[in-house]
């Protein structure tokens, strides 16, 4: 009988611990982008993506974490330790195209490197264009 309060306390502490694991997410450290990439010109700025390559690649590779609207609320976002970037914020959009290109290409920590996955440079720029339009 005496063990009941102890059991309840342990259950409460365990639940809180589990909840805290889901809630606490580390904010992203500043992501240093080499100057050459910051100043890189997007050769496809005014190119219409007739084949919807940007959208297709985003759906396949990015949507699970970043969400269908780019708000960082994808199905997998809750499973990550790091807060997923919201592409719709002014802070994100103020970056140069080259900086976004670099981040997709190289990745870091939980963000995958897509260097070997999106091998066509044009396709990668189409994703940059699509993300900036979200």
């Amino acid at each position: 009988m005496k063990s009941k309060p102890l059991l309840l306390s342990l259950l409460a502490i365990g639940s809180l611990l589990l909840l805290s694991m889901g809630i606490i997410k580390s904010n992203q450290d500043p992501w240093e982008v080499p100057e050459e990439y910051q100043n890189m010109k997007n050769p496809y700025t005014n190119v219409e993506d007739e084949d919807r390559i940007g959208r297709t690649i985003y759906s396949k590779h990015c949507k699970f974490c970043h969400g269908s609207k780019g708000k960082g609320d994808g199905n997998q976002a809750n499973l990550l330790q790091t807060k997923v970037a919201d592409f719709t914020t002014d802070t994100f959009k103020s970056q140069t195209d080259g900086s976004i290109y670099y981040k997709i290409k190289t990745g870091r920590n939980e963000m995958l490197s897509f260097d070997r996955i999106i091998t066509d440079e044009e396709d990668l720029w189409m994703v940059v264009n699509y993300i900036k339009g979200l």
Partner: protein
Amino acid sequence: MKSNRSILYFLFLLPVLVIGQEKKKDTVPEKPERPAFESSFIIDNPTNVLFGKKGMEMQIKHRFGLINGGENDLAGIWAPANIRLGLAYAFHDRFTLGFGTTKFDRLQDFSLKIGLFRQTRSNKVPFSVSYYGNFVIDARKKELFDNDQDRFSFFNQLIIARRFSRNLSLQVAPSISHYNFVESGIKNDVFGVAMGGRYKVSPQTSILIDYSHPFTDFGDGLDPEPGLSLGVEFATSGHAFQLLISNYDGIVQQRNYVFNQNDFFKGDFLIGFNITRVYKF
């Protein structure tokens, strides 16, 4: 028989001839078209898809029992199933080697795929051509075979594919299946043609169709039935999931082309799925 053998020699020689021509063409840079399909198979037949160098694909193929095959078997789901587990590794952007093991007849397959032509975005080359071949060993008990060579079978296929638009891709694939040993009344070589297509209904979802027609005349009611497979494909970052119905239960191509007796339109079809996962090293 003689004409079949000539076609077989032609199919073997073609990769060498075409690679020789390709070297000359390389001096003119031409951007390849994007892949026509998501994975290396369109249900039962190989596609022209090759991974980049050092890419590896894991393949899981599963075929439940026939829907009309028995009683109390939940449309074949509780019936004996055929399964193939395979791996394919790209040693070069145009050259992939693979191995797979299949439950029915304990078939062990070693395969080779070579990209011969690639469709270009400018349409200078209007379609892709790839070669797929395999060598299969039947690993059942030795009492079933007089000679070790009787275990061997071969499959050679040319895959001519075109990506018509972002949504529609089609392929035609003539093939020769060869068994070293067959029962009397069945021919050793069967010429077949497969036609397949993919139509994307969303960035990640496609409708698939694959039809395989063997051209042969065994007589005595032994002629193989054509294969018809319909499916839905879901593609993610590294996976392609194909959920399908098909009258082919053999999984290994030559077994289907030579021995299939299931008639799709008489209800002899089954539920199955293919899962592929690509790793890039």
